[in-house]
C-alpha cells in the first residue's frame, strides 16, 4: 500500500502530490540530500525511518517522481507505477511543465487514481497464478556447468562480472585483451564480451594470479603472519604472469633521473580535442550502421545539438569512461556506479547546441565528480580544537589504517629529545636519547619502518585501560605484580622432611628477561634448620641477599616480540605501568568519568595527575571510542590502492562497530590519503574511498577541487 507519491521539480517545487496517510519526518528531503545529490541515483531504493522510497527522473523536463511505502512491505509494482506515471504525466502536461515561469495547477488526482488501481489489480492477479519452477536450462547452476557456459547468451555477458574482488593483474589482462580486439567492430560491442570473460575462466586465472589478496579473517596463522611481514627483504619473482609488466608501463610517462633525483613526469596538457574527434568518429560510425536511413539527419542533429540522448548512444561513451576511471585507479564497481548515475541523469536530455554527446557526458561527469568530492561538513579542525580548548578538554584524534600506510609517525614529526631540542622522527637512530615521561632519558632500541603484524595489548589488571595496538617491536612498560613469596609445603614426603619453598624473580640484564628461581629450605631433625621458624628466617635472609631481585618497584621495558618468549607465568604476572606525571586542569563531567576509569580512582580535586603517556595512548592505533571517545577517528589510507580502496574503509568501519560494544557506535569521521605525491595522475583511489563511505576527505594540504578533478579528468581525456 502506497503511502505517498510526489512529483517535484529539481528546483524543489512540488508540482503534485498525494498522500494516503500522515507523513512523519521528511523522507523526501532526506532522499534528495543523501542519495540524489550524492550521485547515488543509480541505486534502486532508499530506506529512511519507516519508509522505503523509490524514484525516477524525467531529465528533459527536470522532474523527479518519488513513491514511498512502508519499508516492511515489499511492493513489486512500484517501479512500473513510477514509469507509467512518468510517461502519462509528461505527455499530458508537457506544455504546462515547460512553461516554468509560473505556477500551475496540475489536475492529476483522477488519472493517478486510475493508474494506481490498474497496476494494483495487475499485481494482485499475478500473485494468484502459481508460478511454475523454471526449467533447468534457465537456472544459474546450469550456466556454470561446462555445457551451459558454451551457450552463454548476450544478455548474460552484458552484466558486469559477479566476482567482487578483481585484482589489478586481472584488470591489466582484461585491458590487454580489449586492446587486442580493437578496431574491428568498434569499442562498444566488443567491450562487453571482454568484461564477461573473467566470469567463465576466473577459476583458471585464480591460480595464475600472483598478488595475494589481503585476508580479512580475524585469526592470523603463522604462515600468513610471515607472508604479511613486509618489513624485511624478500625477493619476489613475478615471472609466471602471462602479461609482461613492461608493456603495461608507458615508457614515455616515466620520469627521469636528474642530479640524482627522480623527477616525476609532469601531467601534460593532453589534447582534449583529439580525444573527442577520435571517439566522435567512432560513435558516428556505429550510429551510421544502426540507422542507415536517417543517418545524415541524425548526424546533423547531433552537431547542432537537438538530438535527444538515448541509452544506446550513451553505452559506448560510458564504457570508455569506465575503462579510463579504472585505469586511473578507481575501484571497478565504483566506476560502474558512477557511470550508471551519470547515465540516469542524462537519458532523455537534449545535447546543447553544437556539442557532441562526448562533451555532454564529459560535462556531466565533471559535475558529478565535483559533487562527490565536495566536503559535506566543514573540516575546520582548528576551529574544533579551539572549541575543545575553551571547554578545557584535550582534543583527541585517533588514526587507524592497514599496515604501511604511514600512521605511526609521519615524516617530519618532531620528537622531543632528552637535551631539549626537537628532531624529525625520520632522523632518529638507535642509540639516540629521547625524553621520557618521568624526565629520564629513554634510549631508542630500534626503529620501525615498513609493514608488519600488529598486536593488541590487553592489560590483565582489573584497571581501567582496555587495550591498545602496536607492532611487534613496540616496547611495553610493565610492572611486576607477583611479588617474591614464600610457600611452605608440609607435604609428608617419604624419606624427606618438610620444607619451605622460596620463589623469587630475578632480572637477567643481559637478556632483558625475568626468570623465576626457587630454593628449598628443609627443616626438621637432621636437616639444616631445626624448626620451621628458623627455616623461615633463613629463607627471608636469603631472599634479601639475592641480587637483581624483582620487587614491586621494578619497571620492565621489553619489546613485544621478546615478551612473548617469556614463560606464561611471567607473562601473566605483569601489569601495565602507570606513572603519574601529567596534570589536567578542571576535571569535570564526562572527562572525570573517563579519567576515573583509567586511573582506577575518582579524582577528587580539580587538578589531577595522570599518566603522561595516556595522551599518547589515546592517539595510538585503533583504540575505541567507548573508552576514550576521541573527537575524530580518522582512517589513513594510501593513494596507491585500487580496488582495495573499497574494502579497507568498509572493513575498518565494521570493526569499529563490532568491537566498540556501544549501542550507537562511532564511525570514522574522516580519511587521510597518504602518499599522494606518488600517484601522479592516478588519483582514482580518492574517488573510490569517498564514494564508498559517503564521507569526505581533506588531505592535510587541501587539494583544490578544480585541480583534483581536472587531474582525474585530464587523465581521463588522455
Amino acid at each position, binding site marked *: 500500500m502506497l503511502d505517498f507519491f510526489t512529483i517535484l521539480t529539481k*528546483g524543489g*517545487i512540488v508540482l503534485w502530490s498525494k498522500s494516503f496517510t500522515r507523513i512523519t519526518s521528511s523522507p523526501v528531503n532526506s532522499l534528495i540530500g543523501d542519495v540524489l*545529490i550524492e550521485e547515488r541515483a543509480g541505486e534502486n531504493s532508499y530506506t529512511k525511518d519507516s519508509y522505503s522510497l523509490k524514484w525516477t527522473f524525467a531529465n528533459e523536463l527536470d522532474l523527479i517522481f518519488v513513491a514511498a511505502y512502508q519499508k516492511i512491505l515489499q511492493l513489486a509494482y512500484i517501479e512500473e507505477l513510477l514509469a507509467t506515471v512518468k510517461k502519462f504525466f509528461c505527455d499530458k502536461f508537457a506544455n504546462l511543465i515547460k512553461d516554468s515561469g509560473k505556477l500551475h495547477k496540475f489536475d492529476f488526482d483522477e488519472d493517478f487514481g486510475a493508474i494506481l488501481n490498474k497496476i494494483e489489480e495487475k499485481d494482485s492477479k499475478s500473485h494468484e497464478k502459481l508460478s511454475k519452477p523454471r526449467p533447468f536450462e534457465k537456472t544459474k547452476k546450469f550456466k556454470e556447468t561446462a555445457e551451459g557456459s558454451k551457450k552463454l547468451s548476450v544478455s548474460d555477458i552484458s552484466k558486469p562480472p559477479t566476482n567482487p574482488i578483481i585484482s589489478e593483474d586481472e584488470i591489466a589482462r582484461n585491458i590487454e585483451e580489449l586492446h587486442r580486439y580493437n578496431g574491428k567492430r568498434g569499442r562498444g560491442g566488443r567491450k562487453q564480451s571482454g568484461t564477461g570473460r573473467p566470469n567463465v575462466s576466473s577459476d583458471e586465472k585464480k591460480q595464475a594470479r600472483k598478488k595475494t589478496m589481503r585476508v580479512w579473517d580475524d585469526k592470523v596463522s603463522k604462515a600468513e603472519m610471515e607472508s604479511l611481514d613486509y618489513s624485511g627483504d624478500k625477493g619476489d619473482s613475478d615471472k609466471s604472469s602471462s602479461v609482461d609488466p613492461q608493456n603495461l608501463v608507458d615508457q614515455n610517462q616515466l620520469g627521469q633521473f636528474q642530479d640524482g633525483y627522480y623527477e616525476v613526469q609532469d601531467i601534460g596538457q593532453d589534447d582534449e580535442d583529439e580525444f573527442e574527434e577520435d571517439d566522435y568518429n567512432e560513435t558516428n560510425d556505429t550510429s551510421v550502421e544502426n540507422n542507415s536511413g536517417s543517418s545524415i539527419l541524425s548526424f546533423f542533429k547531433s552537431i547542432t545539438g537537438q538530438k535527444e540522448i538515448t541509452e544506446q548512444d550513451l553505452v559506448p561513451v560510458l564504457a570508455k569512461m569506465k575503462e579510463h576511471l579504472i585505469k586511473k585507479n578507481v575501484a571497478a564497481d565504483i566506476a560502474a556506479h558512477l557511470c550508471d548515475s551519470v547515465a540516469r541523469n542524462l537519458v532523455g536530455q537534449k545535447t546543447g547546441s553544437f556539442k557532441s554527446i562526448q562533451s555532454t557526458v564529459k560535462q556531466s561527469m565533471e559535475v558529478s565528480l565535483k559533487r562527490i568530492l565536495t566536503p559535506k561538513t*566543514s573540516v575546520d579542525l582548528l576551529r574544533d580544537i579551539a572549541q575543545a580548548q575553551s571547554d578545557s578538554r584535550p582534543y583527541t584524534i585517533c588514526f587507524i589504517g592497514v599496515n604501511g600506510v604511514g600512521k605511526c609517525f609521519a615524516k617530519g614529526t618532531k620528537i622531543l629529545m632528552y637535551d631539549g631540542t626537537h628532531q624529525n622522527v625520520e632522523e632518529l637512530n638507535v642509540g639516540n636519547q629521547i625524553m621520557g615521561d618521568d624526565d629520564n632519558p629513554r634510549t631508542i632500541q630500534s626503529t620501525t619502518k615498513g609493514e608488519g603484524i600488529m598486536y593488541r595489548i590487553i592489560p590483565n589488571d582489573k584497571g581501567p585501560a582496555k587495550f591498545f595496538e602496536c607492532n611487534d617491536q613496540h616496547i611495553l612498560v610493565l610492572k611486576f605484580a607477583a611479588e617474591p613469596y614464600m610457600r611452605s609445603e608440609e607435604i609428608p614426603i617419604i624419606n624427606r622432611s618438610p620444607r619451605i619453598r622460596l620463589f623469587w624473580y630475578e632480572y637477567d640484564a643481559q637478556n632483558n628477561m625475568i626468570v623465576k628461581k626457587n630454593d628449598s629450605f628443609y627443616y626438621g631433625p637432621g636437616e639444616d634448620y631445626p624448626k620451621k621458624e628458623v627455616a623461615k628466617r633463613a629463607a627471608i635472609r636469603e631472599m634479601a641477599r639475592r641480587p637483581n631481585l624483582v620487587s614491586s618497584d621494578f619497571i620492565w621495558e621489553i619489546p613485544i616480540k621478546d615478551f612473548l618468549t617469556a614463560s606464561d607465568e611471567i607473562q601473566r604476572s605483569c601489569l601495565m605501568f602507570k606513572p603519574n606525571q601529567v596534570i589536567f586542569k578542571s576535571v569535570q563531567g564526562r572527562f572525570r568519568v573517563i579519567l576515573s576509569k583509567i586511573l582506577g580512582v575518582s579524582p577528587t580535586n580539580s587538578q589531577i595527575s595522570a599518566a603522561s603517556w595516556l595522551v599518547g595512548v589515546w592517539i595510538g592505533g585503533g583504540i575505541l571510542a567507548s573508552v576514550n571517545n576521541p573527537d575524530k577517528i580518522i582512517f589513513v589510507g594510501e593513494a596507491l590502492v585500487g580496488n582495495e580502496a573499497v574494502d579497507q574503509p568498509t572493513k575498518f568501519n565494521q570493526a569499529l562497530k563490532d568491537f566498540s560494544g556501544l549501542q550507537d557506535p562511532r564511525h570514522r569521521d574522516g580519511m587521510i590519503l597518504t602518499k599522494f605525491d606518488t600517484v601522479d595522475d592516478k588519483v582514482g583511489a580518492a574517488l573510490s574511498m569517498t564514494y564508498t563511505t559517503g564521507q569526505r576527505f581533506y588531505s592535510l594540504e587541501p587539494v583544490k577541487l578544480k585541480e583534483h578533478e581536472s587531474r582525474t579528468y585530464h587523465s581521463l581525456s588522455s
Partner: protein
Amino acid sequence: MISNVSTFTWITLAILIVIIAIALKLKNRSKKDTFLILGLVDSGKTSLFIKLRDRKQVQTHTSMKENEGYINLEDNGEPLTKVPIHFVDVPGHEKLRFKFSDFTPITCGIIFLVDSSTCAKNVRSIAEYLYDIFSNKDVIKHNIPTLIACNKNDMITALPPERIQTMLENEINQLRNTRTSALDHQDSSGTDYVEFLGYENERFKFEHLENEVNFEKCSVDKNEITEIKSWVAEIYGRL
C-alpha cells in the same frame, strides 16, 4: 571646405563616442541586475522565490538545482520597480552551494536567509557560509550589498535579529583566525589567499566590512516580506 570637413568629422566622432559611452553604461547596468537568494538548507529560499514570483504558498523540498527567473516586484498591486528583476535561488545543500560563485559576477545584491528558530544550533554552518560569501572575489571587488533576512520569525523559538547578529559576529571572529591559518592549497598561486574579514585588532563586526550588510526580520509563511522587497527595490534603484 577643409575646415568644414574636419568639423563635420569631429562632430560625428563626438556623437559616436557619446553613443558608445551610453551603450557601454547601459550594458553594464544590465550586466549586473541579479539578486541571489542564499542560505542554509531549509531556510526558506525556494518558498521566498515562489512567493515573490507568484504570490502563492507552495510546498517545497530540498532543491537540487537553482531556480531563476525575472520577477516583477510589487506591493499590494503597485509595482516597485519599472523592469523585472532577475532572481536566482541557489540550493543550500553543502555540496551544491559552491554554484553561487558562478553568479557573483553579475550580482548586484545578495539576500541571505537565516532560519531564526534553529539559528543557535547552526550558527557555525551559517557563519562558514557567510564567510565564504564575503570572501568571494566578486563580492569584495564590487562591494555587493547583503541583506541577512531572519526568516521564520513567526515561530516561538525565533531569535531577534540583533541576537543573531551578535552570534554570527562572534562566530566569524573565531573563524577568521582558523581560516587564515589553514595550510596553502596544493597549487597555490599566491594570489589565492583567504580574506581576513574586518580589522585585525578588533572583534569582528559586520559594519567593518566594505559592503553594506543589513539585518531584517521576516516570515515567508505569513507573507511578511515587505522589508525584503523594499530593500531590493532600493538597491536596484541605486544602479
